[in-house]
């Protein structure tokens, strides 16, 4: 697949809550098979952007174009949204990644069971199958969720702060999976805070602070000037903002 095909295209996209924009006039494309980091201060609209791509949040203005059906997107939200007290086994949680194949009612074939075992082994959770999810540590939970992502086998993978509060060993293991997805020409977009990791692993970066600040090759995007600009933009938040009249091209 050529790097020129776009996986996700943003046409003057504004996403927000109520009338307040959280992502303001984003325009551009994420090429198919690219590995992109989304970076920016807290409240800069990074998670909102992912929700917009998945489709759980409709744009206030503009359009998000996907080159795949919405089932072709695997999305890992911030871990806090999972009910860890629910009496469910690790195996069942991970097997939910087969949803696009099994759907609401379909059974899980023997071949799929093998794939679940492989996914568990790929994230180092072999032997955890019968454990209730309530007994997992934060890192183990994240490993399980990555196993589920593996099973989803999606061409586009969105990760929202996948390594926050995760130890170095687990981060390194899971980062290997991200590299593997990249090698398999999947499109990966990850919201991250660790700029060293971004520079090391992610060729492309979108720096965002409600407004897109810079977007392109990582070393150029993460210049000191751009980072300073990103910080200023969020600090300049105006509680009495007027209606935005910027024209949609």
């Amino acid at each position: 697949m050529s790097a020129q095909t776009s996986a996700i295209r943003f046409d003057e996209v504004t996403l927000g809550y109520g009338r307040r924009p959280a992502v303001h006039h984003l325009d551009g494309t994420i090429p198919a098979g690219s590995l992109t980091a989304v970076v920016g201060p807290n409240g800069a609209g990074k998670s909102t952007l992912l929700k917009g791509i998945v489709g759980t949040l409709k744009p206030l203005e503009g359009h998000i174009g996907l080159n795949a059906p919405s089932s072709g997107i695997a999305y890992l939200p911030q871990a806090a949204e999972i009910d860890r007290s629910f009496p469910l086994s690790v195996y069942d949680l991970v097997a939910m990644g087969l949803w696009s194949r099994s759907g609401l009612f379909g059974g899980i074939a023997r071949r799929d069971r093998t794939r679940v075992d492989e996914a568990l082994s790929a994230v180092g959770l072999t032997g955890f199958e019968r454990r209730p999810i309530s007994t997992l540590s934060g890192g183990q939970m994240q490993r399980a969720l990555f196993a589920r992502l593996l099973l989803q086998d999606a061409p586009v993978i969105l990760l929202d702060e996948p390594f926050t509060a995760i130890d170095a060993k687990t981060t390194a293991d899971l980062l290997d999976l991200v590299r593997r997805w990249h090698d398999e020409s999947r499109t990966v977009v990850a919201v991250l805070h660790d700029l060293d990791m971004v520079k090391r692993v992610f060729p492309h970066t979108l720096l965002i602070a409600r407004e897109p600040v810079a977007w392109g090759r990582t070393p150029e995007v993460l210049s000191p000037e751009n980072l300073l600009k990103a910080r200023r933009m969020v600090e300049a938040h105006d509680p009495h903002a007027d209606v935005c009249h910027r024209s949609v091209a």
Partner: protein
Amino acid sequence: MLDLFYTPFSEFEFMRRALVGVVAIALGGGPVGVFLMLRRMSLTGDAMAHAILPGAAVGYLLAGLSLPAMTVGGLFAGVIVAVAAGLVSRFTALKEDASLAAFYLLSLALGVTIVSLRGSNVDLLHVLFGTVLALDDNTLLLLASISTLTVLALAVLYRPLVLECVDPVFLRSVSRAGTPTHLIFLGLVVMNLVGGFHALGTLLAVGMMMLPAAASRFWTSDITTMMIVSVAIGILSGFSGLLLSFHAELPAGPAIILSAGAVYVMSLVVGREGGLLWLAWPGKHLEA
């Protein structure tokens, strides 16, 4: 000795009918109760049990103590309240428990008033506490149909129901089944409450749902086992409650719920999964 457990049912048909009725209620109510509990909707179930009352009361007002009229009225009222409360909580800032609490008080007062318009205190007692010892063929058929339909529907909806509890964001990202599933589930709750209403009355119907479910939580950390355990506890409570009422000459409905309550308290104390005794004396810690 065995006679004590056997004779009441072999000698009296109304006891056999009552037993069949509570088994049917336990089969449907147990799994529904487990899901209500895991979805943190236990009080929702309670509130909806009361929401049925005015509908059943209107049926009673129009047709007297008639099974079809009171069933249809109850289903109607229950579905209206369930759907309204469900939609309110999904699309407004008001949480489901708050809107349901309002509905429940209103419904109870309205229902009791409507029944009193026409009936005697005996009829009011019938509506509030049920008539488990006077189940006729049609009522038994209704109870059996409800539990059959419930078990089938839960089997079909099992996956989205579980997923919506554990990880609603994930469900939304892979499927649009979330909202319909939720609404169908609320429909099942109403159906089971209407069934339970005929046997146990509007005040106690929810007891055969929530007490076995709450008790089962103390015995297992696997949802499938939990549903089986809650059905077993429901049947056991129905059986022992009927015996208790027969031998000690207690009202049957409350005796059944008291039995379920006794199982719950026992589970709370000695249950293997987080029961009080195990919390107090967990034993010495392990190597790893």
